[in-house]
């Protein structure tokens, strides 16, 4: 079970105010977690990564275990602490704009 913490605006859009818990089949990667997230919350498709290119939106970051995973490959395995549910995957909005 993977825990995902969404930024506030995406929690509102998903109409789910809590931490998201996802079951991911097979090896958990950033890509498979995002696939599972968008399957449960279709309204989030396009808000985290581009519909077509799957590129991360520029003002979003992926953090876990005090590391920045934003530049990791989508098929790279997530840290064991995230896979086990001990630590959440954070999707974070940049400190930018107004």
């Amino acid at each position, binding site marked *: 079970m993977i825990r995902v913490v969404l930024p*506030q605006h995406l929690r509102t*859009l998903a109409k789910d105010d809590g931490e998201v818990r996802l079951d991911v089949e097979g090896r958990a990667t950033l890509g498979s977690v995002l696939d599972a997230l*968008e399957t449960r919350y279709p309204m989030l*498709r396009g808000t985290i990564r581009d519909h077509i290119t799957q590129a991360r939106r520029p003002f979003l970051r992926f953090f876990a275990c005090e590391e920045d995973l934003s530049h990791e490959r989508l098929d790279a395995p997530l840290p064991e602490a995230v896979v086990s549910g001990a630590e959440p995957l954070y999707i974070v909005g940049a400190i930018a704009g107004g």
Partner: protein
Amino acid sequence: MSSVRVLVGTRKGAFVLTSDGKRKQWEVSGPHFAGWEIYHLKGSLVDPNRVYASQSSGWFGQVIQRSDDGGKTWEAPGGGVTMTPGGMPSGESNRFVYDASPETGKPLTTHQWYDGTQRPWEFKRVWHLEPSLTEPETVYAGVEDAALFRSTDGAKTWHELAGLRGHGTGPKWQPGAGGMCLHTILIDPKDPKRIFIAISAAGAFRTDDGGKSWKPINRGLKSQYIPDPDAEVGHCVHRIALHPSRPNVLFMQKHWDVLRSDDAGDSWHEVSGNLPTDFGFAIDVHAHEPETVYVVPIKSDSEHYPPDGKLRVYRSRTGGNEWEALTNGLPQSDCYVNVLRDAMAVDSLESCGVYFGTTGGQVYFSGDAGNNWSPIVRDLPAVMSVEVQTLR
């Protein structure tokens, strides 16, 4: 009993202002979609409870929202937990994908960038939503980078009307300061296959076959900021308006100049007349008097505020050229707000109501066609759009 519903899009959410037909007391609801930029909301004429909203953010991109109860509750159409027959989630309502060339599979065309180089189209956001005048499930979206999309399933899925970008002038289009946006969509109420659109900075275009083919309609426009001032395309048209009873007559607020066409855009002539400045964004037509037109003059393209610090709506009762300042109830000193292109609207009650919103967060209202004004609200976030539904 008549009533009005004013749909206000702001930099930080949407607001719905409602009143009975007297328009004396107002109820304010919102912010809806708090913290998001709401470029535009608009209700359907066929089903007034159906309202569409464009919600966007620099962080999270574009989301389309829809209400079926007049703006009380909202959903992202197709964004619920519904599955297609193939078992895939169907959250497609925020997916705007440009058509590619059928021959090559590559982008249909490119456009000019600020430095003169060519760039492919890249979707940014929806500027304007225009519900069909006859079909409640059909709605058009004007987007940045400039293109026109249509949904025929209540905004669940979108498809580009690619004949607009594909007709050949795309490489000459270029972004204005606000981006390369398709911001105006006018459907001819007498002929739904005729649609007018406008793009900054490309100009105005018309289709007569429901969006399959398009042609530029910019003859008569003169723009000193492009190499050929009367070029076929390249003009920064800010807004077009028409009266439903006479859709061949169009009024245009260009970057500079207010213009009029009496032949559905085939030719234009300037009607700026005695305006203190002919720069501006908003333009609209009285609900019952097709020759009565409203603009809000703005000082210049580098000073986006009213001349002399006086917020004045100008009204022409002669279809242009002769303009009178309307000032009663509007600030006449130290006022430096802007009124954006989609931020003016009229209701169709017996005494025509005129509404406009400012970047200072005020929404002003006149219940007597502009003679007297008062604010409905004073302290919203910067107002980006104002639309009015007259409910009977």
